[in-house]
């Protein structure tokens, strides 16, 4: 099993590049730990805030000797933050399962063959859907969709429709290559 704590010493020393390498494997398992909260909190906002807090507390983190200690801490921070949001917004009562430990913590491995297939499928996208897809992917989450659409000379709805088309075409292309894709990718 991958142990993302190989990056821990550098992260504790304040190395943001090491934190980026940790993030590459840690983001998806932390996101998955928020699944049960998705209907009642903005999971993306909670996730980003939790990952930021991991960076802030990492210098004080004390490893327990087990693998992926910082990832396990990240999951606890994310779920505690989601519970705090539940209490703040009173969207629904906090349930006992919200407070239980989330044990399914497994880093995401990189897959070069899958990456090559995704790149090939992306390169086959028609011009407008690809523009929208590349704008959001290349934008790194810094600009909102309206700003991205305006930069491309598109209306917001046109931009979103093009992005959705790109997503569906990518799902179709990957499916044709025998790659299992998440149902929501092609929805």
């Amino acid at each position, binding site marked *: 099993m991958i142990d993302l704590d190989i990056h821990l010493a550098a992260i504790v020393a304040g190395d*943001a590049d090491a*934190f*980026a*390498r940790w*993030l*590459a494997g840690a*983001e*998806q398992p932390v*996101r*998955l730990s*928020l*699944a049960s909260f*998705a*209907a*009642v909190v*903005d*999971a*993306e*906002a*909670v*996730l*980003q*805030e939790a*990952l*930021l807090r991991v*960076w802030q507390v990492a210098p004080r983190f004390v490893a327990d000797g087990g693998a992926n200690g910082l990832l396990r801490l990240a999951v606890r921070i994310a779920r505690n*933050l989601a519970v705090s*949001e539940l209490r*703040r917004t009173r969207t629904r009562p906090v349930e006992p399962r919200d407070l239980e430990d989330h044990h399914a913590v497994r880093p*995401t491995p*990189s*897959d070069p063959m*899958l*990456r090559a297939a*995704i*790149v090939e499928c*992306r390169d086959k996208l028609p011009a407008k859907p690809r523009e929208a897809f590349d704008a*959001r*992917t290349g*934008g*790194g*989450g*810094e*600009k*909102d*969709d309206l700003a991205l659409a305006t930069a491309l000379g598109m209306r917001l*709805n046109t931009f*979103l*429709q093009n*992005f*959705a088309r790109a*997503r569906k075409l*990518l799902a179709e292309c990957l499916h044709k290559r025998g790659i299992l*894709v*998440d*149902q*929501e*990718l092609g*929805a």
Partner: protein
Amino acid sequence: MTAEETDLLIEQVAAAHRPRATDELRYHPAWHDLDAAGRTRAYERARAVRPLEAALDPDGLSTTARAVLARIRG
């Protein structure tokens, strides 16, 4: 709200961009316009799209990771 309008809201909420937080979390504005089913679908769509973004990034980072790093690096 039509199904198409709902889907466009889901597409927006599934993006990584969030307003910069100050003292409390800042939700995507469109998140509030979705019902529970729509919010769950937005989460699932983000979960499905982020691995593609990471695969296309030279450092293996999704837009979520890039957004977090942008806040760290100021």
